[in-house]
């Protein structure tokens, strides 16, 4: 009886409303399961965070503390010594100028390859989606296949071609290869986005004596804001995180940060300074992580679009 009493007068005569627990038993079982699920998810989250935690605490420790062996303990003294060392004087091969060299190489690889790859694929996607071009279907199919081709099958030809263009071993070589390899997937993404633009808009634009390029700059480009940001984020992270293309096409001084990091952690001569290694790993991971934590939703859209549509 008391359970279905919703309102009751208290001593002062005010009406107090208590929520009526109509199905108390059922609700209880659901919360029990919810707790179990949440605990499980929290444990999984813990598992996902462990490597990050270990890397972060190690990067702030001194080598003396690391040698004590307690991996999960917090640093006695939080020191930036390892970070400074990783940035300014860590060795990659014979150069001991730290990761800052690789950082700036990565940045200077990133910009031209973004412009090249997005520029070409945007225009190609636009032409394929909205204009009547010959063999569009066949070309799309070939692009679809190219998006999945393993890099190794065209590795040597690309080395020869970049060498012939005299860009092998330079920033431009790496940027060019990134642009070439990203072109098929990006074209498919842009084409899939543009094909949903209503045909009426296009017809009206053409009637208005709009040429191919004018329609692109005045109508299509202003409409592409969303997809452009998604693609931009996807490309920035994938180019930043790339190792294989950087190590293959970059020469000394033009290798990206990931290559410096790989050299640092795989080197086996001398005493390994683990705190430097971890600081270097974090320095490499910070730019994409910052992007991820600020615009995570767009990042996820990008990778799923790249995976499925590609």
């Amino acid at each position: 009886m008391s359970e279905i009493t919703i309102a009751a007068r208290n001593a002062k005569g005010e009406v107090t409303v208590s929520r009526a627990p109509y199905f108390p038993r059922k609700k209880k079982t659901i919360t029990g399961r919810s707790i179990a699920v949440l605990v499980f998810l929290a444990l999984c989250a813990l598992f996902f965070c462990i490597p990050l935690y270990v890397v972060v605490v190690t990067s702030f420790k001194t080598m003396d503390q690391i040698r004590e062996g307690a991996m999960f303990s917090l640093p006695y003294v939080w020191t930036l010594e390892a970070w400074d060392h990783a940035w300014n004087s860590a060795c990659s091969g014979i150069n001991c100028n730290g990761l800052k060299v690789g950082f700036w190489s990565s940045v200077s690889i990133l910009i031209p390859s973004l412009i090249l790859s997005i520029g070409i694929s945007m225009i190609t996607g636009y032409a394929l989606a909205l204009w009547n071009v010959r063999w569009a279907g066949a070309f799309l199919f070939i692009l679809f296949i190219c998006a999945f081709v393993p890099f190794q099958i065209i590795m040597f030809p690309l080395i020869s071609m970049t060498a012939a263009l005299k860009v092998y071993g330079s920033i431009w070589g790496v940027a060019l290869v990134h642009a070439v390899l990203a072109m098929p997937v990006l074209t498919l993404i842009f084409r899939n986005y543009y094909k949903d633009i209503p045909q009426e808009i296009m017809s009206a634009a053409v009637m208005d004596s709009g040429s191919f390029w004018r329609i692109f700059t005045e109508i299509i480009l202003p409409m592409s804001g969303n997809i452009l940001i998604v693609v931009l984020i996807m490309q920035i992270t994938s180019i930043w995180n790339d190792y294989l293309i950087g190590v293959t096409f970059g020469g000394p001084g033009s290798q990206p940060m990931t290559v410096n990091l790989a050299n640092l952690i795989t080197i086996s001569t001398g005493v390994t300074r683990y705190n430097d290694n971890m600081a270097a790993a974090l320095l490499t991971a910070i730019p994409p992580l910052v992007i991820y934590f600020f615009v995570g939703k767009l990042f996820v859209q990008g990778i799923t679009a790249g995976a499925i549509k590609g």
Partner: protein
Amino acid sequence: MALRWSRWSPQLALVPAIAVTLVAFVGGIIWTVYLSLTRSRRIPEYTIDWSDWFRQYDRLFRDDAWAISLQNLIILGIGSALAIVFGFVLAAMIDRERRGESFFRTVFLYPLAISLIVTGAAWRWIFNPEYGVEPFLHSLGLTWVNASWLSSGETAMWAIILASVWQSSGFYMALMLAGLKSINSEIWSAARLDGVSLWKLYTQIIIPMMKFTFVTCAILLSLGVIKAYDVVVAMTNGGPGQSTYVPAFFTIQAMTGRGNLGFASAAAVMMLVITAIVFLPLVLLTAWQQRRSARIAK
């Protein structure tokens, strides 16, 4: 629909992309296939001895490291499949328990944002035999635990699998979550009314409904496994010995380490063949899906 105005501009706009496709991709593949038939060593040679054109492939199939690579490819594929299972479990739980959805998504997906070299560096450090997780567990009294997986050829692949699963589970979770959200919500209440058990609901209704998502995940996983290179470099560099060679690593090792172009090309062609075998179902699936959606549209 035909737009006949400015007929040449769209065709001209396609020229760069077509040139890149024909030269870099189609031309590149033909070039590598051709090289795999020659006796090229460090410098490419372009004469084919037709009586012995199979030479490089023959050497490849007799090569122990290639056999290890293929074996590891299968181990890595099966092991990484855990990421799909794990991803599905996480997605199902997040989907049912809406509380904390964005928090858990963020945590499970962040490994995807970082380079595999960084992932490898982190896990390499965790598996460090001197200062890593093993001495930590030993200091807790669990002295029977052997956690220095990277120092033995038998367990090094397990460490690579663990790192790959850690890296990619979030990705499959995101795909699965998208699949789960597209399922009609009435199914849940209908199942509850019928008193279907949760296990039955998932195994007999939900998972069959999501088979397209599962197949997509499986194909993406296989393609990812074939391409696996960075994580091997960062964690083991192929070692100990050659125990963690995978085809992608083997091919690049043959080209840059051994300096044997013909041989490396043969390995690259085999990689392409493996990709094609995995890829064929995807093409069929896409065709099937398009036909189905066309039928629904009618």
